[in-house]
C-alpha cells in the first residue's frame, strides 16, 4: 500500500533535475532499491531511492509524470510504495561506482553507506555535457552537513569523501572527453576495485558488463524497464532478448522483483 510523504525540501540539481526530500524515512531501504511513486490522476512510476532517512528522490523532468513531480512545492504530498526490488550489496572493501546521467541517484546513497563502513570508493560519472553532470560536488564534499547536499541528514556524523571522482562528458565540456567506460578502464588500472557498481542507460551497462568480464571483476548493474505491478507478477518488465543475451542476463529475469540490480560474479 502507498504511504503518504510530504515534501520538506526541494533542491535544483541542474536545468531539468530536482531532488525532493520528504518528511520521514523509508525504513529498511537499501541503495539500488526503488519506490513506485504515485500521483493520483497522473500515474505511478519507479524512482531509485536516493536516500532513505529521510526518503529522497532525484527526478529528471523528461515527460508527463516527472514534470508533474517538478511542479510540486514544499508541503505537497507524494504517495509511494516500497522499498521494492533487489538493491546493491557491498562486496569487498574498495568499490568503483559508475553512474550515467541520472543513474548517479542510487550511487550517492551507496557511496555514503560504503564510506560509513570504512571502505574506500572511486566514482566515475558520465554525461552528455557539463550541464548534465549530476551530484558531482556531493560525492566529494567532506562537510557532513553537505554530503548529500542537504543539512539535516541523520545518522552520518563526519563524512570522509570518496577517494577519486572522475567526470567524463561526451563533448569534453567538463572533465575528460569521451565515454565514461574509458574513465572506468583507467580507474581499474589505477586501483583494482573488489566490485564495480553501475546505474545508467542500457548501452552503458552493456559496455560495462563486457569490460568487467574482460577484467574478471564482480559487477552489480542496475537495469531499467517499463514497470507496472512492481511485484514480480505481471511480467511486463522482462528485458528484451537482445539486451539479455549481450549482457548475460538469465531468461525470465524480472527487473522489478529480481532486480533492478543484478550481480554478476
Amino acid at each position, binding site marked *: *500500500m*502507498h504511504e*503518504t510523504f510530504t515534501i520538506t525540501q526541494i533542491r535544483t540539481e541542474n536545468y531539468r533535475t530536482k531532488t525532493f526530500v520528504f518528511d520521514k524515512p523509508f525504513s529498511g531501504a537499501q541503495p539500488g532499491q526503488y519506490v*513506485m511513486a*504515485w500521483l*493520483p*490522476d497522473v*500515474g*505511478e*512510476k519507479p524512482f531509485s531511492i536516493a536516500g532513505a532517512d529521510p526518503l529522497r528522490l532525484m527526478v529528471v523532468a523528461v515527460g508527463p509524470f516527472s514534470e508533474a513531480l517538478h511542479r510540486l512545492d514544499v508541503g505537497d*504530498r507524494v*504517495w509511494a*510504495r516500497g522499498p521494492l526490488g533487489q538493491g546493491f550489496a557491498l562486496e569487498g572493501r574498495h568499490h568503483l561506482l559508475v553512474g550515467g546521467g541520472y543513474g548517479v541517484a542510487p550511487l550517492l546513497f551507496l557511496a555514503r553507506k560504503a564510506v560509513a563502513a570504512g571502505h574506500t570508493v572511486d566514482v566515475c560519472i558520465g554525461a552528455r555535457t557539463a550541464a548534465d553532470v549530476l551530484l558531482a560536488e556531493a560525492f566529494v564534499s567532506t562537510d557532513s552537513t553537505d554530503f548529500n547536499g542537504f543539512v539535516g541528514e541523520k545518522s552520518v556524523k563526519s563524512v570522509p569523501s570518496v577517494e577519486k571522482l572522475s567526470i567524463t562528458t561526451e563533448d569534453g565540456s567538463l572533465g575528460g572527453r569521451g565515454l565514461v567506460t574509458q574513465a572506468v578502464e583507467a580507474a581499474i588500472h589505477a586501483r583494482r576495485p573488489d566490485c564495480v557498481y553501475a546505474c545508467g542507460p542500457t548501452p552503458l551497462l552493456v559496455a560495462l558488463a563486457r569490460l568487467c568480464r574482460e577484467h574478471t571483476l564482480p559487477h552489480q548493474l542496475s537495469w531499467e524497464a517499463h514497470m*507496472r*505491478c*512492481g*511485484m*514480480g*507478477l*505481471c*511480467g*511486463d518488465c*522482462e528485458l528484451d532478448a537482445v539486451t539479455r543475451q549481450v549482457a548475460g542476463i538469465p*531468461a*525470465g529475469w*524480472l527487473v522489478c*522483483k529480481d532486480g533492478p540490480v543484478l550481480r554478476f560474479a
Partner: protein
Amino acid sequence: MPDVTCHFLNLTLRNPIILASGILGTSADLLERAAREGAGAVTAKSCGPTPRAGHPNPVAVDWGHGLINAVGLSNPGAAEEARMLAEARARLEPLGVPLIASIFAGTTAEFGEVARTITAARPHLIEVNISCPNVADEFGTPFAASCESAAAVTEAVKRNVGDIPIAVKLAPNVPDIARIAAAVVEAGADAITAINTMPGMVINADAGRPVLSNRIGGISGPALKPIALRCVYQIARTVRVPIIGTGGVTTGRDAAEMLLAGATAVGVGSAMWTRGVGALGDIAAELAVWMGQAGYGTLEEIGVRSEE
C-alpha cells in the same frame, strides 16, 4: 514421503501446484522459469482476439490482507500468443510440465475464434476466462454471471478445440456458483477453475482516491482464500469434473485446505509476490510434508476425505 503426483483429466502432473493465469505467464521464458521453479503445470496469461495495452498505473497494490489488481488483460492478441505458446510448449516438454493456455473475448463468437487460433499451439488444456464483460450485453455483464452466457461460451469454445480439453474459469461474484458450474459442465466443460479474483475497491483516504487507475479491481491473495474454499466446496458437491482450486493459496497447508474443499489441483498466483517464484515448488514440498504428518499417502486419499 507421500506421493504428490496429480492426475488431472488425461494429464499427469508431478505435483498439484499450477501457476495461475496472469502471473508470470506472458512469455515462454517466464513459463519455463515457473516450471523450473517447481510448478506441476503452468497457465499462460489470458489472451484475447487482438492486442491490448491494459490499464495505466497503478495496476496492482498490496493493501495489507491481499492484493488488488486491474492490469486490464494486456496481451499480444491470439495469433502472437499462439506462437509464444508453441515455443513454451516445446520448452516445457522435456521438463514434463503441461501447458495451459488461457483465453478471453468480448463475444461468444470471438471466444470460438480465439480458441481455434490457440489450438494450433497444442496446449494440454485451454482455460476459458469468462470473468470479462460481454460486449453484446447492455451492461457489459461478465459471461460468468449467468448460466446462459457461460454455457454459450463453453459450447463455442468446445466446438473449436478438437480433442483439447477445456477448463472454464468461474467468477466468485455470483449468487450461486454451483448453478453456473452445472451449466458449463452440461455445455461440455471438461474441468473447472475456481476462482477468478473478487471485484473490489481500495481507497487511499489521505489521497482521497481509489488507488487503481481503473478504480475497481480484482481482490486476490490471502483475503480471497475463504471465498475460494467456499466456491470450490459448493462446485465439488454439484459436478463431477476436476477443479483447479485457486485463490489465496500461499502455503502447503493452504493447498491442503483447497484439496480438502474438493479441488483436484491448486492454482497459485499472488503468493509469488511475498514468496517469489520459488513459492511454486516450495508450496508443493510443504504439501508433501503436511500429508506425511497428517497420514495421507496420495492426493487421492485427500480427495476421498473431501467427499465426507
